[in-house]
């Protein structure tokens, strides 16, 4: 025999999947949303995304190599995704130093403090984003109006659809006239954070993820359906104060969160039943915060709260065992 035989036991073949392949597919699925953000926000989008990705990569490399003294994990692609998703949760006129701070918190506290990929209980991009939101509420809640292609920090800001929805619910029903049409909401000709504006681009990303079997339908569909049902009920109760559920689906960070943030492998439940309860919880909390909380957008908090509940969900929601019913 030319070489030694392996005596390791079955299975002897593998489907070929790797962590990198899954991360690469997620990055490809985020490309349509990135293109949309550049079309809508111009230079600002490029600057913010580039800074965020570079900072996340740097901090992960530095912490892994010098503080934890382990081989670099940049190759697995998760730091790039955290960078992109953090950028997608920021307005396009945010100062560079805030992006860097957000990246440091996202990677350093949200991920590496727990031991790196696979060990963190909270979505790192959201940890960074919420840190920035609480530390710099003014800069984090002023969004440039769309189509200021060369503007960055000097962009003109204005109310986003979600701001307007909140105002309408608060009693300022005249704001309905300022609300962009559903077509604009769907395509992305609106203000908001970088990655959340274009529903169609995000949905293309969802199709890519489902087709390549990176995620299953349970979490995104459950979140969107829950939000649609709850806002639909409120709209039916009082259509003047509470807008059409379709507006809610396309406005704010709901699509981005439902498709890319809540479906993060490490922080989401492990069983189909658990994913459904997780999605219902996120949808419910998002609607509550949107309508009854003082922040216009509730998605980030909703996801972080449900991330904390995931270990309980994993304990309670076990898969259907073969032969269980007969037992």
């Amino acid at each position, binding site marked *: 025999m030319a070489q030694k035989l392996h005596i390791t036991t*079955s299975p*002897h073949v593998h489907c070929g999947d790797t962590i990198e392949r899954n991360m690469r597919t997620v990055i490809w699925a985020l490309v349509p949303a990135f293109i949309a953000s550049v079309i809508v926000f111009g230079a600002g989008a490029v600057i913010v995304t580039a800074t965020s990705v570079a900072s996340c990569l740097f901090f992960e490399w530095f912490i892994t190599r010098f503080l934890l003294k382990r081989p670099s994990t940049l190759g697995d692609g998760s730091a790039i995704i955290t960078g992109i998703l953090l950028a997608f949760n920021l307005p396009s006129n945010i100062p560079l130093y805030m992006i860097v701070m957000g990246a440091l918190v996202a990677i350093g506290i949200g991920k590496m403090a727990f031991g790196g990929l696979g060990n963190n209980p909270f979505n790192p991009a959201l940890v960074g984003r919420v840190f920035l939101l609480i530390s710099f509420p003014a800069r984090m809640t002023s969004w440039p109006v769309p189509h200021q292609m060369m503007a960055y920090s000097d962009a003109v800001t204005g109310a986003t659809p979600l701001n307007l929805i909140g105002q309408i619910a608060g009693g300022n029903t005249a704001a309905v006239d300022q609300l962009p049409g559903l077509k604009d909401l769907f395509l992305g000709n609106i203000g908001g954070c970088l990655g959340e504006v274009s529903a169609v681009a995000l949905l293309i990303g969802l199709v890519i993820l489902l087709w390549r079997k990176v995620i299953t339908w349970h979490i995104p569909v459950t979140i969107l359906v829950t939000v649609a049902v709850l806002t639909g009920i409120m709209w039916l109760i009082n259509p003047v104060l509470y807008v059409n559920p379709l507006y809610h689906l396309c406005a704010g960070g709901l699509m981005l969160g439902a498709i890319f943030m809540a479906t993060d492998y490490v922080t989401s439940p*492990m069983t189909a039943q658990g994913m459904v309860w997780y999605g219902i919880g996120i949808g419910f909390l998002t609607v509550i915060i949107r309508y009854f909380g003082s922040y216009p957008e509730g998605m980030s908090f909703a996801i972080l709260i449900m991330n904390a509940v995931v270990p309980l969900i994993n304990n309670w929601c076990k898969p259907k*065992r073969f032969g269980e019913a007969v037992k």
Partner: protein
Amino acid sequence: MNTFKIGGVHPEPNKLTADRKIETLALPKQAVFPLSQHIGAPAVPCVQKGDMVRVGTRIAEPGGFMSASIHSSVSGKVAKIDSVIDASGVRKPAIFIDVEGDEWEPSIDRSDKLILQSTKTREEIIECIKNAGIVGMGGACFPTHVKLCPPKECTIDTLIINAVECEPYLTADHRLMLEHPDEIIIGVKIILKVLGIDRAVIGVEANKPDAISLLQSKTSMVSGIEVMPLQMKYPQGGEKQLIEAVTGRQVPPPPALPANVGCVVQNVGTVFAIYEAVMKNKPLFERIVTVTGKGLKNPCNLKVRMGTPVSQLIEYAGGMPEDTGKLISGGPMMGRPLLDDTAPVVKGTSVLLMIPEADAIRREERNCIRCAKCVQACPMGLEPYLLATASESADWECAEENWIMSCIECGCCQSTCPSRRPLLDWVRLAKNRVGGIIRARNAKK
């Protein structure tokens, strides 16, 4: 198309030898018969060094109730009773016979004539199967005469013939169905008579349309035997998954058996062996073995006498490729790696698979990224990531609570894990330990 509901994966079928007719391999120079070729107590030799035997002579008797006899597949002289390393990876006692000529026991009917009817009674058939040393030929090697006498509390209503062959590369059962369909149908009728029932379903995976249509045309005139095409999915050929696909019933967790849901499952190779034993008085001493693998010059399906060293089959197939990294007795998902090519063909050897070094090597193991692909893949509804972690920390209680004894070791979980974690290695360790704890607990009662 029917299939099982939970989990499953779709490996590359790689049925390289599906169109290769069965060829007969030449006799070996020395045949080696391990005494433990079946589930249960090893057989006890009834020959000694120097005895002359013929083809079909019994050389070992059952070692207990759950055991089977072993017959010589060659004629010659018993050289020694020594030990050999078989697919289990450890040295086991075996009978070595130096081959001289090819003299068969006179009682064996060697003609090609198809015998349609048997006058034997049910008890006589069972005795005949027992004396022929027939065990499950799908790989599990359960003594057939025990399986065909299910516990009295169980009411059997369906016989299921496992012709699924869901593992990639395997084609032995496929060729058997194409080349000996009549014998198989007669064998099914024999088993129906033994069980005293009138319904049999032959489950075949949809990737064998020629076998399905051939068997369907043969069974169209026979009442009670039905051919059911099943969706291609691994592990469709697993006993529990097959029962669910055919009847919709789920077998409860161990210690329950298929008999508890009214089913008896037999591999189609076992059915053929039953025909030969009952109708031709031929004990079990030869079987079809697929020799296959990418890079093999001449992958083939061979009719092989038991005891032939595996090296002879590999030589016939063109020799072991230079870059072979693993020699496997069995399929790529559940087969056992052979330590070298001196192992003999035994009753459970359905395929010899050679995998190149590049595919055999295990990639570096990473952290669990909690993607839940293993949970989605598991056909028994378990959580392999959790069971593996429990096993690594020796938390046997957690493993038992999470149904680890239901694991059928199919390998779906490990083959989908993007982090390349050795899930099944850990689960097997935990099953061993938890099984011991359960046995000790039951013994105390």
